[in-house]
């Protein structure tokens, strides 16, 4: 335990997320809160995806399926069953983790491109299934009565409430990422990433480890999904299972540095800010997508280890504080 208390990287990680996350609470600015909501949401998604992608080395294009399913379960419980958002989010998380554990047990047998393609297939299959499933609204989705926000002290408070919950979730997911990375279990995952067959021979129970990693990566996206759609007031299949968001998550991880704790945090924040900037910049407004593409290409070719990875490689001293 002392090991953790003394680790500057842990403190830095916590501090960064906390300082950034508490900022809107201090300024009481709703705009900053909305900006931060998106950033924290992406930090959580990227950070949890990194457990599978960065640590275990499995390219998961279907990460967003956890977000979408969690959103659906949570939203259904809140809007249709009148649950409070916290138990709803927890129930969603539980359900999705179970789903991930079963799914992981099946598809993690695949490697490389086959796994990546299968995850695309899973996302699309789930999305198109929900579109056809009328109990959860089918293509129309579900909507929540505005009066529901009264339970949280009115709509304004509900938004702040959702934000604070998200901040806790983000912190938890970054800490989870840290503890996995610095644990024996995490070391096993890294070994799997580097060479799965060698890892098996070294004594790592790879099938179990991979499945656990997969399930761990599903905990927080499911909660984030519930919070996001709670705040949105409605849910539709198209918004819940947007493949593009998975890819964006991967981009964020690459940008920040895959396989590191801080990488997804830095990557998600940078990507989100950058997109925001490009979107509103009169110069790049029309070309923002292409510009983001060029930037991504340059990063992959010239800084493949991402910002944090680059710092760690360039300045070995930094390694101690930058996990």
């Amino acid at each position, binding site marked *: 335990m002392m090991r953790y208390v003394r680790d500057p990287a842990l403190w830095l990680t916590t501090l960064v997320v906390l300082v950034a996350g508490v900022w809107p609470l201090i300024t009481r600015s709703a705009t900053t809160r909305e900006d931060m909501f998106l950033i924290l949401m992406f930090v959580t998604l990227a950070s949890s995806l990194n457990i599978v*992608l960065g640590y275990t*080395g499995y*390219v998961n294009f279907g990460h967003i399926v956890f977000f979408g399913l969690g959103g659906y379960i949570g939203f259904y419980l809140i809007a249709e069953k009148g649950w409070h958002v916290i138990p709803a989010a927890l129930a969603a998380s539980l359900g999705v983790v179970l789903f991930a554990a079963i799914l992981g047990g*099946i*598809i993690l*047998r*695949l490697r*490389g*491109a*086959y796994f*990546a*393609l*299968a995850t*695309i*297939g*899973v996302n*699309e*299959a789930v999305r*198109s*299934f929900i*579109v*056809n499933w009328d109990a959860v609204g089918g293509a129309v989705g579900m909507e929540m009565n505005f009066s529901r926000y009264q339970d949280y002290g009115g709509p304004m408070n509900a938004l702040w409430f959702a934000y604070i919950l998200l901040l806790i979730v983000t912190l938890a997911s970054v800490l989870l990422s840290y503890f996995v990375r610095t644990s024996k279990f995490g070391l096993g995952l890294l070994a799997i990433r580097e060479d799965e067959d060698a890892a098996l021979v070294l004594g790592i129970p790879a099938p179990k480890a991979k499945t656990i990693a997969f399930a761990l990566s599903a905990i927080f996206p499911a909660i984030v999904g519930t919070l996001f759609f709670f705040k949105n007031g409605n849910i539709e299949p198209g918004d819940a299972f947007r493949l593009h968001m998975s*890819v964006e998550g*991967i*981009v964020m991880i*690459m940008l920040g540095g*895959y396989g590191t704790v801080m990488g997804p945090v830095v990557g998600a924040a940078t990507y989100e800010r950058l997109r925001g900037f490009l979107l509103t910049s009169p110069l790049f407004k*029309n*070309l*923002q*997508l*292409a*510009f*983001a*593409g*060029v930037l*991504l*290409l340059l990063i*992959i*070719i010239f800084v*493949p280890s991402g910002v944090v990875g680059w710092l760690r490689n360039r300045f070995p001293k930094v390694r101690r504080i930058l996990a």
Partner: protein
Amino acid sequence: MDVLLASLVDGLLIGFVYGLAAMGLTLIFGVMDVVNLSHGALIALGMFGVYLLFTGLGLNPYLGLLIVLVLGIILGMILYAIAIHPLLDGPHLSTLLSTFAVSMIIIGVGTMLFTSTPRNIDINLGSMVLGPVRLQGTRVVAALVAILVATGLYIFMYRTHVGKSIRAVANNRDAAELVGIPSVRILAFSFGLGTMLAMVSGGLIATLFPFSILSGGTYELKSFVICVLGGLGNPTGALLGGLILGLIEGLIPVFMPVGWTPVIEFTLFVLIILIRPSGILGAR
């Protein structure tokens, strides 16, 4: 019964075009182990190539395909040099992302130039009735062109020196290099071929359906499904996979609500990867 027959024919015809699109994806994967995420954007580019030649120069769409074909090979080789070659020896993820970046660039520039307004190439080659089946001229021609291109590719791969080199590189790059095959040039050319196939199939699709710069995504997903059906990395299998997909799409509505088509398709897709990753016909 009539419905079944009509849907069967419709499915088969469109299946050839789907198959052609998937061939590009599977060829690139087979030769260099790269999943090309710019595939959809390239299909859309092919659509606009034919469209612009048609509306701008009044060129017959089928003639336009020839120009798109040449442009496709050149563009593909350029893309290889920029986005694939520097990353070929890196981790799997890097080429996935670089091709995705290319897709962002194409769609970004495309949206600026063409907006996302749907376009339509207005050609009609009439139709003919064979019993319960009505064959639409454009579809028959599209299927024929797809067969022609696929046959051409097959002959090229098995009868020419370059084609054999491509197969050699696909088999074992190092060994090919040892026997004096310039593997880099072959890889670049293969990417060119893959791009060409994507763009040509895009051009064909443009003669059938309205499209926009964002349309490629649908066909990219279909191509993934087809590649897996036919066996990833196997161009001949892709054509077959295309036919199977066409049949599935044709027949499902006969038996259940049409909305379930994608559910069945993608479930099948995942199941096949799991049970038979080498494709329906592939060796185990």
